């Protein structure tokens, strides 16, 4: 896999938002005192009249955004994933999801890779909360380029969207001109022995795992499931019909995440062995991002061993 550069996914969001600001005058942005962290400065500087600094008041921000849609604006809210979901679940539920408002909830610093700030800020439940909400679309892009593309794509989608990205600098491996289609999974590698379905930073971790598995003679079908809801069922089923077993990988709690969503599709349509690479019912802690991934069981080696386990169960 060719590495095209190294950047954080939040910067992809910032670039995408800035371009949207130039292209669509209905796009407005709100931020709860984390403009620099969310990389929203370019939008703010170019379009100060369409940028709304709300201060440290996320509940107000979510309902404001819902109200702004009345009259045709497309609000993008920006704060950490924890404060984009858990802190404001009821505001999202009533004023955005139930009311079907065209708000884009853009959430950075998701998961363990937020790092040193620790468990108070490392939300691992957000995908679960958002995918449970009717009317909500949930997008978790894999790298800088894809986050930029996804940011622009969700502006064209009419309805509530949760866009999840992160803090650490990670390899860029998706070409900038690769089209992003909400709900259409992306095949990274084609293989025949085992399926790996991953989202977010875990796509890169899975690519690293595939390199190791290749050396062991294991052929992997790797799918980047950048949209958790609506889930690309046919991509899952086409792959497991070929491989007969699956590993899901996510920077999220096993409860409620991508793996459970995939398991629901499999149990209804094509039951087969599945292993979950995810955090097991635990809060995180302070530390370096990659060290935390290893400690909490979502590192590259965990994907490799999950593949070995699932292959054993298949045979």
């Amino acid at each position, binding site marked *: 896999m060719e590495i095209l550069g190294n950047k954080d996914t939040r910067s992809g969001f910032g670039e995408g938002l800035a371009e949207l600001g130039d292209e669509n005058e209905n796009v*407005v942005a709100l931020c709860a005192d984390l403009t620099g962290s969310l990389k929203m400065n370019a939008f703010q500087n170019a379009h100060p009249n369409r940028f709304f600094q*709300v201060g440290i*008041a996320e509940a107000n921000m979510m*309902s*404001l955004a819902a*109200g702004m849609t*009345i009259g045709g604006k497309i609000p993008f809210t920006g704060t950490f994933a924890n404060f984009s979901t858990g802190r404001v679940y009821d505001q999202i539920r009533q004023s955005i999801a*139930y*009311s*079907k408002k065209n708000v884009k909830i853009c959430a950075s610093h998701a998961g363990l890779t937020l790092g040193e700030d620790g468990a108070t800020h490392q939300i691992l439940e957000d995908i679960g909360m958002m995918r449970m909400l009717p009317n909500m679309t949930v997008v978790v892009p894999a790298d800088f380029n894809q986050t930029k593309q996804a940011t622009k794509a969700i502006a064209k989608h009419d309805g509530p969207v949760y866009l999840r990205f992160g803090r650490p600098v990670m390899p860029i491996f998706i070409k900038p001109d690769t089209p992003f289609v909400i709900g259409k999974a992306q095949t990274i590698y084609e293989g025949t022995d085992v399926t790996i379905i991953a989202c977010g930073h875990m796509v890169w971790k899975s690519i690293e795992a595939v390199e190791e598995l290749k050396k062991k003679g294991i052929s992997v079908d790797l799918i980047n499931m950048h949209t958790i809801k609506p889930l690309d069922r046919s991509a899952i089923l086409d792959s497991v019909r070929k491989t007969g077993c699956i590993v899901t990988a996510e920077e999220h709690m096993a409860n409620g995440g991508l793996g459970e969503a995939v398991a629901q599709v499999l149990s209804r349509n094509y039951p087969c062995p599945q292993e979950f690479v995810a955090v097991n019912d635990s809060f995180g802690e302070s530390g370096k991002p990659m060290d935390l991934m290893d400690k909490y069981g979502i590192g590259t080696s965990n994907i490799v061993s999950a593949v070995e386990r699932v292959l054993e169960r298949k045979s």
Partner: protein
Amino acid sequence: MTNQELINISMQIRRDIVRMVAAVKSGHPGGSLGCADFLTFLYFDWMNHNSEQFSMDARNEDVFFLSNGHISPVWYSALARSGYFPVSELSTFRKISSRLQGHPSTDKNLPGIRMASGSLGQGLSVALGTAETKKLNNDTSVVYSLHGDGELQEGQIWEAAMYGAARGIDNIVATIDYNGRQIDGDVEDVLSLGNLKEKWQAFGWVVYEMDGHNFDEIRKTFTTIGDSLGKGKPIVVLMKTEMGKGVDFMMGSHKWHGVAPNEEQLEIALNQLEETLGDY
């Protein structure tokens, strides 16, 4: 519209309210009755709105948000009686598959409703958001909102209050239904709001006070408010009302906040409320 015409409408709305909640033995008559005069004024006399062709976007139209969504009966009646949907549909209130949900929602596309409410404290933020969009769109119409006094115990209200003043949002008029009662008892006993006027003033809002059952006073207050719009400050009205107004046994207590009258009580109530426009 003359005061007598407004009184006739609000009388019929009160009849609608007690009939609606009695029919399904659930709903919130107390606050609904207390706000019947105010909603009559807004929808039949004051707001510039289009009930024939409902538009979610409300461009160049005044907008009303009900933040204390549990008083949906009064809103549904005011909407139906002003032409948003057939009056006969009031009979479906709270029944299965109805567009008239227990608390207002956009889910079933009921004309006149632009945001779900019921979980309290969110409506002021929503109203400010729409006010911001009107400014961006160079739309000079006004956003009106209504909130319960008990609802002001929700923290988000004060986040929104801070925001509205800091941003100088001057195309909004928020009204507080200051009836002094909530489910568990008097607001003063449940959790005192302290000096509410000074609180709003300290948050940077222009505060008006009025009797919510006196059409002359309501009109005079809103006419004065018309001159305060566009002056860089958000506006709030502390509206004194009586919970249960119009039905003697429902007044003077918090007990009819969320309780429906039985058949006998309904008959007593309807004897006190003249049928002016024809029942649904």
